[in-house]
């Protein structure tokens, strides 16, 4: 059981100037009536293993889609590495090449092989002729094979994606993202449907890659335990609002009191999630 420490003013060491993602007063909606997210403020330091936790429908996936420019906020500002996401902006488009995004559904191309799926991550580095003829340079194929062994898929390179198990599919999606040589990795509930053992394997895989490549990993979960176990920072989303943000340092949880919750409510929330 982790200890909880509440601090109103975070110590200076926790304040970094190297923010890779900054959102201020961000709201967005799918229809004109309801906000899917409302007045979200958050900032993520480079190299953080960040977790977003919340119930289904709370707006987690929407938040992630704002972080790779797939959605544009209706209000507020977002900066990804100090650039405002915009598909028509050349600079941002270039940045998208190094934002690995793994949607909840994984988004694999079913009819092609594991290797071909992973090589998709290298497409931005191909010229027109190479992409027309599907001619990946030798060093890209070597890199793909290295990543395949890293995620534990050696021997399955030529298997069609639709033939894989749930765990294997997740490994392919992670490998495709790593093939992008990412600086940011966004993953949407990629272990939610897995058994406990496989979920841990996948989480360890991402955590290792995150540390080794000094990635900023932003992972959505709906299980608080997983978040506390792997992340350095956890934001809790409820009904489109960020209600809590905490730091995790070893066995200590630091509550930054960003939301309006009092101590009891926060304690209750952790207790609730430990029961599961």
């Amino acid at each position: 059981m982790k200890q909880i420490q509440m601090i109103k003013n975070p110590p200076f060491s926790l304040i970094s100037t190297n923010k890779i993602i900054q959102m201020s007063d961000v709201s967005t909606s799918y229809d004109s009536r309801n906000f899917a997210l409302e007045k979200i403020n958050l900032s993520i330091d480079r190299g953080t293993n960040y977790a977003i936790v919340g119930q289904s429908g709370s707006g987690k996936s929407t938040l992630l889609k704002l972080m790779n420019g797939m959605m544009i906020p209706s209000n507020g500002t977002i900066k990804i590495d100090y650039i405002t996401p915009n598909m028509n902006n050349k600079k941002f488009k270039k940045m998208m090449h190094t934002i690995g995004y793994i949607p909840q559904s994984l988004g694999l191309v079913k009819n092609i092989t594991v290797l071909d799926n992973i090589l998709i991550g290298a497409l931005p580095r191909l010229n027109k002729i190479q992409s027309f003829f599907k001619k990946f340079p030798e060093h890209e194929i070597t890199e793909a094979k290295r990543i395949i062994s890293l995620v534990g898929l050696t021997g399955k390179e030529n298997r069609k994606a639709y033939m894989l198990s749930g765990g294997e599919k997740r490994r392919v999606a992670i490998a495709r993202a790593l093939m992008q040589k990412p600086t940011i990795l966004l993953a949407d509930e990629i272990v939610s449907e897995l058994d406990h053992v496989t979920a841990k394997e996948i989480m360890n895989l991402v955590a290792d890659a995150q540390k080794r490549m000094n990635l900023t990993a932003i992972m959505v979960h709906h299980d608080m335990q997983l978040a506390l176990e792997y992340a350095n920072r956890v934001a809790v989303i409820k009904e489109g609002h960020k209600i809590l943000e905490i730091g995790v340092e070893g066995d200590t949880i630091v509550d930054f009191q960003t939301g309006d919750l009092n101590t009891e409510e926060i304690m209750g929330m952790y207790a609730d999630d430990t029961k599961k």
Partner: protein
Amino acid sequence: MTPKNNIVIGIIVGLVIIASYNVEANPLEFAEGLPNLGIVLEEILVLENIIDNMKYVPTALWAMLETLQMAFIGTVIGVVIGLPFSMLAARNLNNKFIYAPIRALLAIIRTFPSILWAMLFVIVVGLGPFAGVLAIILYTIGFVTKLQYESIETIDSDPMDAVSSIGVSKFQLIRYVVIPESASHLLGQMLYMFDYNVRQSTILGIVGAGGIGFFVVQYIKFFEYGKVAVFMFVVLMVVLGIDWASVKIRDKYIIKSQHGVEVLAK
């Protein structure tokens, strides 16, 4: 049965009667004319006539081969030209300023049956199979493109979104996601289109655009029903053969995955 249904059925029956009157459909005339068919059959089915007409089998086969070649070239070239159009016509790949005019153009092409296009091409390139091939190419473009953009629009949006989020070009998205995800449909559609085009090609000869239909029309004009029968028999056999082969090819190359989606076997 609700009163509303009764009214609808009443209207349909009424329309059939009115239309029948307008096209001078007369069951009595049909019954009276039926014996004529008997006379023709009698002529065809006499053994010595059959033996006599067998010597036209090579000609019929040769004409059928021409028909098949017309259908084959027309299908392949039509699909090759149609494929890029289907990418432009797909609503999930383009905005309406691109897909709407392309769709309108394709709809116009499909409006006229290939035999009308064949008549036009006979005027352009003269009598012969080339006019037929052009007609088939055009019709195939109109038809296969519709089939193809409809299947592109049913592609799972998840891989499209995931791969777009990498910031790949539209060409790369098509090459690496759209085509693999719709390839199984494409094979089926090509088979279907070839099958369809073979049938179409058999009648293009009527307007002088080559193929076996040309002979059939000539023989009908001169009341040589025995020869007509030989040619029709060859058409029947070849079309059945193609049907059978299509089924085999489909079974071999298009299997159902465990999720029930059509996927391409190796």
